């Protein structure tokens, strides 16, 4: 029996081999678990890893049944519900929570024949940009072990970049999929708001959250998307995006393809505060695209400067509401309720179970929503949101907005989280698409030293397919995709 090293290959290549070949699948999975065994101690990308016997058994069954994804494993961010499998949100308050149901996206992947290999590390309740607020400790960037992998879906990005899993589900509220994708040289995709069902995604900010994908390349994202899109009757905000056939287009794009003559638009204000090294790498990537026929334009939208405070006002407010349920003695961290008055019980459990950043956001969020301040902060932020959407949609109708995904290099562990404003400022590029509901991707622009740099491309609402295809074109032209760090 020939042995093929499928490690480091994207899913679309792995599938060629393992379809109808359970033996190759088993070998592949063993190698994955070997890598996990070897690297997990340092990288700490996972919070929970399923036992290999279970995963292999399920994968082989899916493979033998001829399911489309043939037993391909997937890592799932730990704020996405998996039935019977611990789901912690990176928090002490849910460290023993075992959901009775699967998120719709997880259910759809399982039905297509994929198998959940484990739950990945994340900032607590997705509140953070570096995965350092996790109750379970931080993850490390495989490209530089002294640095963060980004966040809040840091573990998902670690798993894919270090090839502990060929792909991951993450979540993105203000950049949490694109940020770690950029920092780990992987492909990150945040859908149009509503395109992927939120049922089972443990909410941080309901009007901004979306499940996203972190993959080895854009073709894998196109492939997986086919199995998980579609309106969900369990999600009142879900939309219907039709994607059949578009994976084939992405797959067949090659060096010789005539790329669509797309317009790239840079909004000056989004580039303010970008570090010199990052700027150079991203501009040189854009130069390559322009040389291949893309047009490039710079415009000014001064209101962009208010995207960050508007985003944080909305995120904090909605988070304070979404986290009001924790403390209830049905699940999660619990105490003996006997003899305790309910307000003492709740404050005790919540104070014990939530970390500092979460507490800060909940308290400020409650304040924003309280009487007298609702107009002052929350309504104002919603108005800024409308202004931004009205200003940006015309650009998105004629082209794609480009920027560095992150304004700075991945910070060293411990560096970023002391100063809250400094931490929040990392999101300056990525919050814009969440606010206006647009899809966005991060592709590898290049490297500064050995550190990955991401190029963010934003598309119009419901334009996810074309956006991923543009991403594929960019990958091919710029030349960096399916990258592997030396760990």
């Amino acid at each position, binding site marked *: 029996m020939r042995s093929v090293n499928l490690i480091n290959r994207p899913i679309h290549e792995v599938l060629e081999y393992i379809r109808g070949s359970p033996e190759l699948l088993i070998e592949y999975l063993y190698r994955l678990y070997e890598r996990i065994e070897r690297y997990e101690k340092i990288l700490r990308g996972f919070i929970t890893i399923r036992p290999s016997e279970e995963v292999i058994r399920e994968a082989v069954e899916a493979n033998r049944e001829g399911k489309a994804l043939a037993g391909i494993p997937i890592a799932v961010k730990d704020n996405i519900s998996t039935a019977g499998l611990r789901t912690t949100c990176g928090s002490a308050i849910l460290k023993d929570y075992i959901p009775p149901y699967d998120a719709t996206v997880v259910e759809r992947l399982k039905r297509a024949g994929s198998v959940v290999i484990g739950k990945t590390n994340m900032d607590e309740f997705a509140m953070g940009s570096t995965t350092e607020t996790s109750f379970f400790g931080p993850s490390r960037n495989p490209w530089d072990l002294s640095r963060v992998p980004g966040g809040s879906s840091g573990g998902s990005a670690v798993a894919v970049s270090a090839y502990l899993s060929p792909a991951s589900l993450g979540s993105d509220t203000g950049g949490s999929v694109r940020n770690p994708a950029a920092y780990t040289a992987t492909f990150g995709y945040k859908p149009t708001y509503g395109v992927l069902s939120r049922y089972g995604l443990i909410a941080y900010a309901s009007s901004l959250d979306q499940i996203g994908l972190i993959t080895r390349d854009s073709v894998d994202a196109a492939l997986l998307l086919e199995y998980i899109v579609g309106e969900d009757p369990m999600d009142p905000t879900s939309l219907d995006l039709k994607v059949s056939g578009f994976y084939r287009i992405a797959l067949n794009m090659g060096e010789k393809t005539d790329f669509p003559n797309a317009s790239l638009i840079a909004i000056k204000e989004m580039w303010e505060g970008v570090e010199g090294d990052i700027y150079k790498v991203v501009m040189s990537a854009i130069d390559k695209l322009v040389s291949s026929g893309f047009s490039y334009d710079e415009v000014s939208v001064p209101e962009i400067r208010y995207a960050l405070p508007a985003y944080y006002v909305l995120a904090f407010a909605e988070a304070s509401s979404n986290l009001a349920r924790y403390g209830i003695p049905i699940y999660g961290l619990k105490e003996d309720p006997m003899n305790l008055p309910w*307000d003492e019980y709740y404050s005790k459990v919540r104070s014990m179970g939530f970390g500092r950043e979460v*507490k800060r956001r909940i308290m400020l969020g409650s304040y924003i929503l309280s009487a007298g301040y609702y107009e002052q902060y929350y309504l104002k932020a919603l108005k800024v949101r409308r202004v931004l959407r009205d200003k940006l949609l015309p650009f998105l109708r004629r082209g794609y907005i480009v920027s560095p995904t992150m304004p700075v290099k991945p910070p060293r562990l411990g560096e970023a989280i002391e100063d809250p404003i400094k931490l929040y400022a990392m999101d300056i590029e990525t919050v814009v698409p969440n606010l206006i509901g647009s899809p966005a991707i991060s592709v590898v622009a290049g490297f500064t030293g050995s550190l990955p740099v991401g190029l963010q491309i934003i598309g119009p609402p419901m334009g996810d397919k074309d956006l991923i295809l543009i991403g594929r074109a960019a990958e091919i032209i710029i030349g960096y995709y399916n990258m592997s760090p030396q760990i």
Partner: protein
Amino acid sequence: MDITIERLERLAMLRLGGDERNALAKDIAKILDFFRQLDEVELENVEPLFHVIEKGATVREDMTRPGISREWVEGSAYRVVDGYIVGPRTIVGEERESHQ
């Protein structure tokens, strides 16, 4: 600053320790200043955009579907007595009663 940490604790149902409170007080002032940047924008005639989904929430037909079993609850809750979930007392705590 007209808000107190105590009030924020009550709204968020949290109780912070001494160190946490001090750190938080500093952070809050900074963050509120950061938020107040929003005052610089001209928003007089702008309608708030409550949601990017314009068509509204999807609704459902009045039909039943299976739920989850009580077994899950019994396995997950702190204590279950005769099928009821045991919760704390519903009388307000004496300590809290003295606030406002």
